[in-house]
């Protein structure tokens, strides 16, 4: 190698090294972790689509800066989720980690991210630990605390005078939260409380037990692929005509197109619905349908909101991504157009928001869709914020 070439190479290297940090400052990096493969991949697809739609609406900029989203597939496994978060923090040096469907994955990822001093914006899982004792300045969620939605269903069923309820959920962090939230407002003792394996396919044995217990109503939490299996098998067993089924996160825009008539007339409670009348939501729903040719689901709405929340934070600090305190202060205001309408943040960075009763009905075009029947809770706070020591 000649001397001139060596000097030239050194020069190039110096320029690259000098330009490196400056370039990094001009770009927002967001690590988005969700389940993209396997049976839960359909949920991840909706979340990823919604992130991309949010970026489209923002003109492919976040807070006025260029943006890079690094997607990670957690395969519904907490260990894989944690590895992804580590990689995003160390290798990609992301400014935000977002996403996460499953509460058990969230419990592994959130502490990893916040202890590294990076902002964690959850867009689905809401384990009670992170709303209470483990609450953190750097952790926000655009969804809900797990207990809240079943609390609304518990209240509705109690108000209806329904007794002798049998409850079922998968055996993991969120499943436990869902049943304890339900019991908090339903108050009466349950006839049975059954936890099944996470990702279980066949519920026949549990359905036989359920039939033998002869309850007056059934309450379940079976998200994503599990909901499709359960709804199908519940209908096949002939129990749907005999024992009314109430659910949370089970009958949604993912399961409805698949199980169709087997879910007609089902009740759900939720904080969001495609038919919520506000400008941000109508834009989101109609553009989602236009771009992806199907109805969006709440997993997507939350992820769309997550990007919008990050955008509001980066905008507030005028693109100074090192100003974490400023971004936290900005996000606490929830100053963006959320698909659920306006909401506020509680001290534990969990939304104080409305919860509605929804029903699966035949829409105008003959297809099944979820429609709001009434409001169950207005500005509902989660049950754990008092355990959170944060003050602001």
């Amino acid at each position, binding site marked *: 190698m000649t001397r001139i070439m060596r000097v030239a190479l050194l020069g190039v290297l110096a320029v690259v090294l000098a330009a490196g940090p400056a370039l990094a400052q001009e770009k927002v990096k967001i690590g988005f972790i969700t389940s993209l493969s*396997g049976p839960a991949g359909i949920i991840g697809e909706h979340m990823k689509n919604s992130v991309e739609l949010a970026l489209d609406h923002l003109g492919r900029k976040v807070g006025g800066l260029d943006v890079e989203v690094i997607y990670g597939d957690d395969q519904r496994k907490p260990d894989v989720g944690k590895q992804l978060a580590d990689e995003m923090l160390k290798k990609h040096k992301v400014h935000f980690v977002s996403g996460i469907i499953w509460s058990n994955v969230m419990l592994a990822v959130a502490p990893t991210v916040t202890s590294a001093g990076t902002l964690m914006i959850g867009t689905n899982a809401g384990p009670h630990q992170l709303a209470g004792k483990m609450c953190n300045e750097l952790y926000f969620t655009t969804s809900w605390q797990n207990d809240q939605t079943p609390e609304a269903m518990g209240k509705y069923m109690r108000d209806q005078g329904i007794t002798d309820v049998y409850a079922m959920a998968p*055996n993991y962090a969120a499943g436990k939260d869902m049943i304890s939230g339900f019991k908090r407002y339903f108050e009466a003792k349950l006839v049975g409380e*059954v936890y099944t394996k996470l990702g279980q*396919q066949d519920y*026949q*044995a549990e359905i*036989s037990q359920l039939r033998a217990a002869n309850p007056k109503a059934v309450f379940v939490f079976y998200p994503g*692929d599990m909901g499709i299996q359960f709804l199908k098998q519940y209908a096949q067993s002939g129990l749907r005509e005999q024992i009314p089924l109430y659910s949370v996160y089970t009958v949604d825009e993912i399961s409805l197109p*698949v199980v169709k008539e087997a879910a007609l007339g089902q009740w759900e409670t939720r904080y969001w619905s495609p038919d919520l009348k506000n400008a941000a939501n109508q834009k989101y729903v109609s553009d989602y349908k236009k771009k992806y040719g199907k109805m969006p689901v709440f997993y997507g709405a939350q992820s769309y909101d997550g990007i919008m929340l990050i955008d509001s934070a980066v905008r507030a600090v005028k693109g100074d991504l090192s100003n974490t305190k400023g971004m936290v202060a900005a996000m606490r205001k929830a100053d963006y157009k959320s698909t659920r309408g306006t909401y506020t943040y509680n001290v534990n960075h969990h939304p104080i928001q409305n919860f509605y009763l929804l029903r699966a009905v035949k829409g105008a075009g003959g297809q099944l869709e979820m429609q709001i029947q009434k409001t169950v809770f207005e500005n509902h706070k989660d049950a754990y914020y008092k355990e959170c020591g944060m003050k602001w």
Partner: protein
Amino acid sequence: MTVLLIVEQVLNGLQYGVMLFLMAAGLTLVFGIMNLVNLAHGSLYMVGAYLATFFYTQTGSFLLAALLALPATLVVGIVVELVALRTLYERDHLDQVLATFGLILFFNELVAIVWGRSALYTTLPAWLSGHVVVLPGLRYSVYRALVILVGLAVAILLWLVVSRTRLGMLIRAGASNRTMLSALGVNVTLLYTVVFGFGAALAGLAGLMAGPIYAVQTGMGEQILIQVFVVIVIGGIGSIRGALVGAILVGMVDTFGVFVKPMLGTVLSPVAADSAGPAIASMLIYLLMAVVLALRPQGLFPTRAS
């Protein structure tokens, strides 16, 4: 009431068991005879389920769909053997695991590209969606009863093929001593292809029967594959009889896991039973495998391989 419930759960266990058997029969033969660890066996189950659902929605006839999906899965199996697996027989198990794991990813993405990530759903034809009265007071789904009957019929058929035909003789010989078999002038390469193809068709049969009960979706094969490996380890690798006994055992034990919590409730406090019950229930089949391995490391029905 309780007796009826137990009978119903026995039927549920049997139904799950025969599904596992259809999967395990192919896997155990491939493992025992060809000495190939085939993680992609679950993918053939998935392909069977997707093809059956596809043909069902196209033709509108469940029987016709089944008749079309079976040979189609057999062909897919043979193609996979010819293209991908043939080169792997002489490699060690780690290479085989890596390559067949790659096939899993390939098939999962392939069906996601062709049919989308959203699960497929078929409604049963009217003649299968009713219930039969098994005992007074006990109604059981016609379709699940049919699954049990088909599974048992296939088990008998397989037993006849393996014990009474020339092909079966070659299969048994291959399981005992492959080198001797090829030294005697048997075309072992052809035998492998045939065995693999029929293993694939059996997995496809399990898949097509699973379609109307479970959701047909990417990754459905891996969910059942782990239990199938438990079955062949319990039954003894390479043994059809072992696969049958192991499958029924695993099906029963897994189904009867629903009784663990109420039984624990009688000896422990309700809170302790609530938290321990589901955990123990999901461990049961692995406990069973551990006990079998401790007492009979070769499985319940070991083949006389060296």
